[in-house]
């Protein structure tokens, strides 16, 4: 990579260069649409949500931040009927909706002691529904795995690929072509995963692939591009150095988030007392640079049938340098066949 590398620390001038949007909901005039629960608990809800009645906030709700919105949302979801396109409850928790996807955001999905890939499926179907062009670097599972689950969530990956909305890099297949296909090297473009067999450990080929897939052609009418990676820890297992992985993410961020005004969602694995130092290095570094961190953990007390784990949502408001602290919310979840239900800690349906 010959050109100068932009400074990767989040200093104010660099932040302006990235032109990340401000997080104040009133700026885009949608204040009344989704009440922000992260406001101080003393305030009343500005507007009722669609569907479901609002009950006055009790002292209990105030103390545990279990908004009546969440309870009414559950009834609303069940009343609407039909299978949800993605996890509707997660959309509410994140204040996101497919009609107005945010731009220039870097979301980090992190899992510990459990499997966080359900979040990858959520974001995949979310962005496809939102009409964004998605480049999915799927390193761990085959295409049919994602396709079958996406169909349960109401999105067809084969159809999306055919109409050009989805560029799917199936890591396993690409690696096989690279490893066993002697003749394919000479013909056509180099494999995106060529770092596996060559001695160079930089991920330039992978970055070129992402850039080419997401750069909009003149005939495209999709909303902003999205890069989805599942998962980044596999790159380390395949021989990439942590610095190479971080460089790759940084280059992708400059191109996708700031130049093309798109989003990036990346999944990594981590363990608390892990001995994999390279992985921990990558994960910690990415945590510092993310706008939104969804950290999925298995329960510390062991396996439970009704509560599969807890999710910690961290909105990195502190990156905006307005003096505010990061906003952290913790919920527990249970994964079902086609949906994931979220609830406040200790309020699982099995307990109530």
């Amino acid at each position: 990579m010959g050109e100068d590398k932009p400074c990767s620390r989040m200093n104010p001038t660099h932040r302006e260069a990235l032109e990340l949007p401000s997080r104040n909901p009133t700026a885009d005039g949608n204040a009344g649409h989704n009440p922000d629960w992260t406001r101080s608990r003393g305030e009343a809800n500005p507007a009722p949500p669609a569907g479901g009645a609002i009950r006055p906030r009790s002292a209990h709700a105030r103390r545990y931040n279990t908004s009546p919105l969440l309870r009414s949302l559950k009834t609303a979801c069940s009343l609407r009927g039909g299978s949800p396109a993605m996890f509707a409850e997660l959309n509410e928790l994140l204040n996101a909706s497919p009609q107005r996807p945010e731009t220039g955001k870097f979301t980090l999905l992190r899992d510990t002691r459990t499997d966080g890939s359900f979040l990858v499926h959520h974001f995949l179907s979310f962005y496809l529904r939102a009409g964004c062009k998605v480049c999915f670097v799927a390193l761990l599972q085959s295409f049919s795995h994602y396709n079958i689950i996406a169909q349960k969530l109401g999105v067809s990956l084969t159809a999306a690929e055919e109409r050009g909305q989805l560029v799917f890099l199936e890591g396993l297949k690409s690696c096989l072509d690279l490893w066993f296909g002697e003749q394919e090297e000479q013909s056509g473009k180099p494999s995106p995963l060529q770092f596996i067999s060559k001695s160079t450990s930089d991920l330039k080929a992978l970055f070129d692939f992402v850039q080419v897939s997401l750069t909009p052609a003149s005939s495209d009418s999709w909303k902003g591009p999205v890069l989805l990676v599942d998962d980044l820890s596999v790159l380390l297992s395949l021989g990439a150095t942590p610095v190479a992985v971080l460089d790759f993410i940084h280059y992708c961020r400059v191109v996708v988030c700031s130049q093309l005004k798109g989003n990036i969602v990346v999944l990594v694995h981590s363990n608390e007392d892990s001995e994999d130092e390279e992985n921990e290095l990558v994960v910690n570094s990415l945590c510092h640079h993310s706008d939104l961190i969804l950290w999925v953990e298995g329960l510390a007390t062991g396996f439970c049938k009704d509560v599969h784990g807890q999710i910690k949502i961290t909105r990195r408001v502190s990156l905006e340098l307005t003096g505010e602290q990061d906003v952290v919310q913790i919920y527990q979840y249970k994964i079902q066949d086609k949906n994931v239900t979220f609830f406040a800690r200790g309020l699982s349906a099995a307990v109530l």
Partner: protein
Amino acid sequence: MAAAAGGAARGRGATSFQRKAAAGSRLATVAGTRPSVRHGQLLLSSGLPSLDCVLEEDKYGFYSSLLFKYFLAEGVVCGHDLFVASAKEHPDSILKELPAPLLDEQRNELGEEATAVKSEDFQDSMKIAWRYQNLPKMEASPTTSTKFGHYYDLSKTMSPELFQPIKWHSFYLPEELSLQPTVKTRSMNSAYGRLLLSIQRIISQEGFDGSDPQKKQKNILRIGIQSLGSLLWGDDICCSDTPEDIHSLTKFLYVLRGLLRKSLSACVITIPAHLIENKAIMERVTNLSDTVVGLESFIGSERETNPLYKDYHGLVHVRRIPQLNSLICDVSDMKDLAFRLKRKLFTIERLHLPPDLSDTVSRTSKQELAGSAKLLSSGCGAMAIGKKHLDF
């Protein structure tokens, strides 16, 4: 008789595979949560015979080689093709030592004995703990309603006639090295590279990846690789803390995963995890595999004489179960599993503590037992590291 049995078994193997495939994304439970006499089938009963299972070896490799042989024996009985790779023993000798399957009459006998015992207990009504009368009887070993799998008799080896119709391929590293002294493999341990080439050749030649549309009778390839990662494969991750090439094993697993996903095959690999110093490698291996099961045997350890474990020969740790084509994985309730090697059978059961009847057990040893019992309750992928969370 043998041919007919083979034919019938092949029929059963083929139809059971097709039924599951038609059902689409049904998942079944994994090796560690059923009695291991059936485990050879479970990889296939998931509807996607494209799994790989990593078996962490116990200290002396005794029990893991037993499970390895079960997997291959199940393949023989169902009529699947086999591919055996080893650097230690010649695959011929491995295949000669497969356990013999139990015929149906003997299996019923075993079943009858077990039920006879159960019905006796049932008739006594409880006098002291009468509140517990209405609770369902605890199953020591999880049983299923479907008959899917075979029992094997460890005291006998499989007869050669059963073996005749089976097509099997072998990879014995010292032989391969002498046949082809130099093979170009890029950026991976050469032994692993050769093994990959060999597996890929078999898969494409025999049409397991669907490349041969003429072949109507689909079959499954069962791949067994023994002691991967040990020094005999030319990899030094088991003997040094800073190995030369820590990525070889993980690259191998990744390429193997790709091969399995696109073909009708299932693979069981045993790895001497207790010898690998660098734990990061085992973490990466766990992330790259579908199923990871660890065996901890009590031979030679202090637990052999521990009264807590007097009925069992070792513990089974299920570290990961496959989650394919579905958001959730089919997790069973049983988390504490132990195995026991009876005269004829190898079974995996739920670990339960023996009743505490003696008065002479001192307080300190009781606390030790309690501590080790708490450590056992590790969920799959969710270790109860927060011991303090459970203490009152």
